[in-house]
């Protein structure tokens, strides 16, 4: 998305996510971002930012327990960015799910 985003993340970049449950992916063609946009629907909240060249980026998406990805991604309970500025809201959303963060399965996608 940025002019400097022309190669996969280095070990140093990946090391920013230290959680052993995290899975990190390299998505140069924005496959997941396009899928997230295509499958967005009510009651999923609409993001207040995070579009560049009509592609989602710098976005956090939270799915509750029980949500399954069938033909389309399920509606997310949190869908917003930029990630750095939405941390308090994201933590609130996690608390609303009444689940400690340690029980969540996380993934990060570099695009």
């Amino acid at each position, binding site marked *: 998305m940025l002019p400097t985003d022309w190669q996969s993340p280095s070990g140093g970049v990946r090391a920013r996510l230290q959680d052993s449950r995290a899975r990190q992916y390299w998505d140069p063609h924005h496959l997941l971002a396009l899928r997230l946009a295509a499958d967005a629907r009510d009651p999923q909240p609409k993001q207040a930012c995070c579009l560049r060249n009509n592609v989602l*980026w710098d976005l956090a998406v939270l799915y509750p*327990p029980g949500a399954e990805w069938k033909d389309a991604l399920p509606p997310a309970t949190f869908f917003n960015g930029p990630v750095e500025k939405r941390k308090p809201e994201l933590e609130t959303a996690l608390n609303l799910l009444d689940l400690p963060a340690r029980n969540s399965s996380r*993934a990060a996608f570099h695009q």
Partner: protein
Amino acid sequence: MRHGEKLAPVAAVVSALSCMACCLPLGIAAAAGTAGLSLVLEPLRPYLMAVSGALILFGVWQLYRRGPSCQRRSRASVAIFWTCAAIVALMMAAPQIVANLLADLRLPFGQPALAAMDLAALRADFNRAADRTRLIVLLSPT
């Protein structure tokens, strides 16, 4: 005459630097540096490797075909040269292995290696963890 006065000290400096360049393994260090840089600048790798190869040849010339200004070949220069030559050769032969070794040194403990995006595989992983909260974050690779 005036020009000569101005140029003489400049020529002396250039001459001194040339003499030092003959004795110091600058070309060798530069060769190792460009080879390392090529691991990061993937698209430029062929060109940087060519520069590395040329600089190694320059290092050979410095060490074994030098002029009369450098009378003795130091052991340190020879050791540095062959160490750098080995590094450059390894990077030329197996650049991805070297890159992975360097990257793995900084990877978070317990995480699998970086994977290319495969939506089908991701969906399977997503549904396998359906009993838990899942958080997806889209981030820049830089």
